[in-house]
């Protein structure tokens, strides 16, 4: 169902020759959803989905700072979970490879 927007009255009447295009895109509102580019969507350390902040950050209301970290092994965890983990054991909790940070999400 169409509905009028109360706007400008009809504009200039132009009787030119037939243009190439009848419709031209003037404005575009593009919508996208972002998520962490991870293989497993749960953090194996805190067992919370990586899209959600880890429990510690949730309780401290620091959801925005709770980013994801990837290791060389391509496994990913909450950055804060992992930084606590490596203090005890510098291996990936999933594959036991030595933990080397590949990248940190932002």
């Amino acid at each position, binding site marked *: 169902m*169409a509905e*009028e927007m109360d706007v400008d009255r009809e504009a200039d009447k132009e009787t030119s020759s037939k243009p190439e295009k009848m419709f031209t895109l003037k404005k575009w509102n593009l919508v996208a959803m972002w998520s962490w580019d991870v293989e497993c969507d749960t953090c194996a350390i805190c067992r919370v989905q990586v899209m959600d902040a880890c429990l510690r950050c949730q309780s401290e209301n620091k959801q925005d700072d709770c980013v994801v970290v990837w290791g060389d092994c391509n496994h990913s965890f909450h950055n804060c979970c992992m930084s606590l983990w490596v203090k005890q054991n510098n291996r990936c909790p999933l594959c036991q490879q030595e933990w080397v940070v590949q990248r940190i*999400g932002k």
Partner: protein
Amino acid sequence: MPLSSANKRALSEENKGEPALTSKRSRTESKNRELDEPESCATMTEPQKKANFSALSGNGISRHASPLANAKPGAAKKLVIKNFKEKPQIPENFEEQTWLKLAEAVGAIQRSCAIRYSLEELYQAVENMCSYKMAAGLYQQLQSACMKHVRANLQQFLGDTYDHEQFLKMMSNCWQAHCRQMIMIRSIFLFLDRTYVLQTSSILSIWDMGLDLFRTHIISHRTVEARTVDGLLNLIERERAGETVNRQLLKNLLRMLTDLQIYQEAFEKKFLEATERLYSAEGQRLMQERDVPEYLAHVDKRLNEENERLLHYLDSSTKKPLISCVEKQLLEQHLAQILQKGLTQLLDENRIADLTLMNQLFSRVKDGLKELCTAFSSYIKNTGRLIVVNPSNDAEKDKDMVQNLLDFKDKLDNIIEVCFAQNPKFVNAMKEAFENFINQRQNKPAELIAKYVDSKLRAGNKEATEEELEKLLDKIMVLFRFIHGKDVFEAFYKKDLAKRLLVGKSASVDAEKSMLSKLKQECGGGFTSKLEGMFKDMELSKDIVLAFKQHQQYLDASQAIDLTVNILTMGYWPTYPPCEVLLPSEMVYLQEVFKKFYLGKHSGRKLQWQPTLGHCVLKAEFNSFGVRKELQVSLFQTLCLLLFNENNEYTYQEIKTATGIEDSELRRTLQSLACGKARVLHKTPKGKDVEDGDKFQFNDEFKHKLYRIKINQIQMKETQEENTSTTERVFHDRQYQVDAAIVRIMKMRKTLTHNLLISELYNQLKFPVKPADLKKRIESLIDREYMERDKDNPNTYHYVA
């Protein structure tokens, strides 16, 4: 200081006939002298006395010092004091004579005639008799004289024919005469009353004696008492029946009974019995005859009348039993019936005054308010259930549910405030009742409340000012508080919020923020963190677009397309079904450029396009009339329209292949373009619905009075599909929430018994859940080795790190 009676008597006899002044003075002297030698005074002659008196006034000590004075030289006169030669005698018939005088006076008083003697004389006579120790006899004689008179009065009350009121008047007169007489008599015999009677504890004071005689000889006569009490009761009954009666008469007689101390036993008991009989019958009868408001007004009237009765003639000691008798017979006996018969009507019709009265009356009797409160609560439950429950899922009815609930709540709030004096018990009862009925239907109320809020927060809602809106939101929050499945509310609220934000349809950012803070206050930050995240995403997106537009590649790729972007954080927003469409190459290019730009800024992320949410502005030229327009359209509409730049006619199938839009979406899109109000396309054959074989042509003759036209996407009847999926997702998410909560708790506690775990879970979860379902989740977590059972005690769990 009491005078020595013997001395005084002697003096007064001696001085008879002397002027009063002398007599008085001599009495004073004797009073003084008796301190030393009481006998001596009788010997003195009159002149001596006078001398002595003057000496006394000159020097008071001299008299005490007389023995010493003899020893002093120069004392010319000697004062010698001797005893009476003969003891003074009172006349022989003194007692009889005096009594005769007094008896005559008493008789005159009783007959209400003039008394022959002066009152002082009579008083003196009494005093003299008392002084000569004749008090006992005097009292006896007075008593018998009074008794005789009182007895004589009895006869008039024993007549065969009598009229109640006549009788009462007679009695009242008799009583008042009796009182008058006794007061008079007592005044004359005051000396007796104050001396002999006071000192003799076994006899009654003259006044009491009078009462006693009246009681014994008149009132306590069986017939008289019965007639009196019956008369009184009859008079009261007539007054209760609405007649005007002689209240003074009632008052006098009841005071009489009180004075005679037989009010309680003779009158009150029977009176209360009569009251009980009357009101018991009246209560029964009027409950049948009258409707409740009338009945309550009547009860109120009765209570006022009885209070007036207490004020005017009943003894105040009757107040408690009388009022409680009326309350019991008219109210307490009928509590249940009154409530059952009338409360619903009163509440339905919002009869403020009647409800106020009901509250007042009920508060007087035991358990009255409790019963009222219970009935009130069940009324709310029943009425509320009718508003909420909708077995046929009639959308029309559901549409008004929230407004009806708000109105209902307003009405009850008002009643509680005005009629029930904001009694906290009623406030609580209302809350409980609301919570009870609103949750009788699962999910739907939560959903409708969310939608109601949406309708109020959406742009174009100009009904309310900011203030009114704020008030309304507060009221909605009250309803929200009652809802058990708060997550259902959140899911629907979020969906609508997303629409408002993405389409830019929110009426006011302030109102949105205010609602958000209310939710936060109610349910805590955890509940709203995602909703807040949505607002944050909107802000961040604006920044990103600004940055992107500075970017060189945008300038190259844009081709004059004005790009805006909303990047939503997964998890904050509702999930939308994934869908892929085929974009024209320049759009794909622009999209890719942006993606590269975005991921360059945010590493570790991936983007998923949401074509369903995109929208565009198209410039359109219709050449037949050289018309130029701007069309506000969705991305899907855009894709369809852009096709017509290449060709003038497409079949449905061709469009589908070219755009890749999913079937039902495409049908609705084409419908909006070819069958709506603004038809930029022609469809053949014509018709409302889009069929597979339909063909579409560009409408070159398109005309519209406006320049900028918004072509609304035909809304998929939001109903079933979307609705069900939202609800389903809520239930699905509940599983995760339960899991997460269990793990959270177990991680913190390490070891916990089953019961403790369950009770902690109930504290944390914001939706209703059955224990059996919790158990299933626990089992599942044990299977997945998040936790384990204790080896010895299967009811205890350990967290597995």
